């Protein structure tokens, strides 16, 4: 059972939860990132995620190690999907189990923030009238056929 995975098909939330439920745990927090249709009024048609797969899985496992060190007694599982995703499809599922509830929230929150910092995965938004690699607006004002928006709006 691989607890940190990049997958190419749909993610079943229960599978990820099953990897962390244990008799010692009283709480599981789960974060599910889905494809949102509208970002500041702009309509996403679909998304494409790409990853540097072996490094991404290694980095997800590293996040799990960081969480274990910071929240002793916790267990974490993360699956991130790549490829083409439609609106409402699940892109990422994080599950963290802990003895008590406060740490489950904190650790899961930590995981999603770290994913957005250190895991080599990239999202390309496709709109009716263009497409753009999110986070890539630096060099690509010309490349992007759509409207770049602030980093904060797009990357969550």
């Amino acid at each position, binding site marked *: 059972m691989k607890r940190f995975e990049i997958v190419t098909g749909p993610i079943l939330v229960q599978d990820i939860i099953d990897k962390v439920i244990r008799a010692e745990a009283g709480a599981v927090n789960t974060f599910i990132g889905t494809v949102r249709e509208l970002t500041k009024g702009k309509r996403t048609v679909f998304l494409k995620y790409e990853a540097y797969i072996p490094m991404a899985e290694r980095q997800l496992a590293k996040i799990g190690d960081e969480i274990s060190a910071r929240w002793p007694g916790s267990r974490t599982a993360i699956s*991130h999907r790549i490829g083409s995703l439609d609106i409402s499809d699940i892109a990422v599922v994080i599950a963290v189990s802990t003895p008590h509830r406060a740490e489950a929230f904190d650790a899961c929150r930590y995981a999603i923030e770290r994913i957005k910092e250190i895991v*080599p995965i990239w999202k390309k938004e496709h709109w009716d009238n263009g497409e753009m690699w999110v986070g890539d607006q630096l060099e690509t004002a010309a490349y992007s056929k759509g409207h770049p928006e602030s980093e904060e709006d797009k990357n969550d």
Partner: protein
Amino acid sequence: MIKVLLFAGMQERAGTAELQLDEVRLRISDIKSALEKKYDSPQMFIGCLSAVNEEFADDDTEVSTGDTVAFIPPVSGG
């Protein structure tokens, strides 16, 4: 031979996911300079991190035959 991997927008602009460099030993900064010249794109590594054999590395890191260098543009997973 050193393998270089490109991703996302960087890969699309370069038109390839992978390059092979014949050198036996190079610093990351040397590779960056070579690619900036090759693609005539002096800003192509702005905001970009580097990894050697799947671990983050800095510009001074030396790589040699058999190593895999990956350039990691700003990530946007999650």
